[in-house]
């Protein structure tokens, strides 16, 4: 990709940026023109200035920060309670052929149930409180981590393990010094995918269950009151938050792959 050669003296870079901005700027201009020239005043769509104003108001009143915090806590709890068992099961599947025979078929079948299908069952078992939401996110976060961990471990070249034997490593040392480091890039990819799934599921769970705060419930309220500006602010904030967490794992991935080179 051209990103790699985009240095300060690359005159292709500004052109790329300009072209990339053409569509968003055009869309924004059309949105603004729609209201400025009175083309439609009855649409359920708020003008851009009003949306910006709503963003500032929600940020000033602390409402935005509170809702973001609530969603963030749910994402954190759900992601961790899904990813940690996911790592354990993935390692088990990667290391033991017995575990694969026993568990893989069932896990593959369970994986086919779309995560949202679990939600009513979660509500039956855990009520509509925080436990349901966290358990729901955890189920979604679990499977990608299992898949990428077991695949990453299975793909470790046999030579690495043999080299470890030459060094006289015991099983634990093999795992910690050879197998896991070699599987790390794959594991991190799974974690990243699982985290972005968690963001999707936190919104889904907040839309489907009444909750104390959360960007999803802020958007649901906005929808009920036909406040499209609130809905758009919610989409913007949740997109940025997801991007930020995603980017931080990508950064870890880069460090991990640099360590290998």
């Amino acid at each position: 990709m051209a990103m790699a050669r985009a240095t300060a003296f690359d005159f292709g870079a500004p052109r790329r940026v300009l072209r990339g901005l053409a569509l968003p700027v055009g869309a924004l201009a059309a949105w603004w023109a729609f209201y400025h020239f009175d083309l439609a005043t009855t649409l359920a769509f708020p003008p851009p200035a009003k949306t910006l104003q709503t963003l500032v108001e929600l940020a000033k009143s602390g409402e935005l920060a509170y809702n973001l915090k609530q969603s963030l806590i749910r994402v954190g709890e759900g992601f961790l309670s899904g990813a940690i068992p996911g790592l354990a099961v993935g390692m088990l599947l990667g290391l033991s052929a017995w575990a694969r025979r026993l568990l893989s078929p069932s896990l593959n079948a369970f994986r086919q149930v779309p995560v949202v299908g679990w939600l009513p069952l979660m509500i039956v078992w855990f009520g509509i409180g925080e436990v349901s939401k966290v358990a729901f996110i955890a189920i979604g976060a679990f499977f990608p981590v299992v898949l990428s961990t077991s695949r990453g471990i299975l793909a470790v070249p046999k030579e690495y393990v043999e080299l470890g034997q030459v060094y006289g490593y015991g099983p634990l040392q093999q795992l910690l010094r050879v197998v896991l480091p070699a599987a790390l890039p794959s594991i991190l990819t799974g974690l990243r995918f699982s985290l972005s799934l968690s963001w999707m599921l936190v919104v889904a769970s907040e839309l489907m269950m009444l909750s104390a705060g959360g960007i999803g419930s802020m958007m649901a309220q906005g929808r009920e009151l036909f406040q499209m500006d609130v809905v758009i602010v919610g989409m913007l904030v949740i997109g940025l938050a997801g991007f930020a967490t995603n980017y931080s794992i990508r950064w870890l991935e880069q460090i991990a792959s640099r360590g290998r080179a």
Partner: protein
Amino acid sequence: MSHADHKGTPGEALGAGWLWALLLPLALLLGWQAASALKLYPEQLVVPPAKVLESFIALAKDGTLWGHLKASLSRVFAGYLMGSAAGLALGVALGRSQIVEEYLGPSLTSLRQIPLYGWVPFLIVLLGVGDGFKAVFVAIGTFYPVVLNTQEGVKRVPEKYLEVGQAFGHGRFSVLAKIVLPSALPSVFTGLRTGLAMAWMSAVGAEVLASASGLGFLISWGRQLLQFDLVMVGVICIGLVGLAMNNLLNPLEAYFLRWRDNGNGKSNSL
């Protein structure tokens, strides 16, 4: 460490593999039966397996189940068609043309940061809660995996192949149809398969949120009526359809990729 056998597939001896595979589900079923027989939990929370089977048969007989299934499937079909057609077209354009990539790529990447369910309130305000909203929602869910994988596959077509095509005097579209698309096909199928799973998930989600028919509606309705056997039947059917969909594209993929020795369509299992 039993690491040396890492090439061993789980079902080496296929007969024995099946037995192993059934062990865990059987244990779960036994545990479920035991928990409900011993009344460890209230019957509303853990419905006995027999009762779930009973209401499954009842729902299948009076046609309710097929009605819901049909409603869900037609939503998936409409949305999947739109989403994958748009994804394929845009994916090829983005992968083949630097200019298209420069104009559309950054916007697409930004929009992709919005979690799928973040679109729901927006779409409902714009389109209402009818089938239009559901089709568009399913289409968005389908679109991203298809566009990304198609773009990846098309971009990775080796330059040499294209040169050979030009040497044979193929024109722009001929190169596209005879060289670019066939060699991008494995990646395209990965996108179509992931897209179908996303389409199913989006359809069920939309039905749970706002619908009066479909399997997603069945589970949320069963919950509201406190008839948890309905919920279980719904969850099991949703899972079975998901499983069927995952295998639906396998024969198609095997057919299109029969000229490749490694394209056996098994890329998606643990």
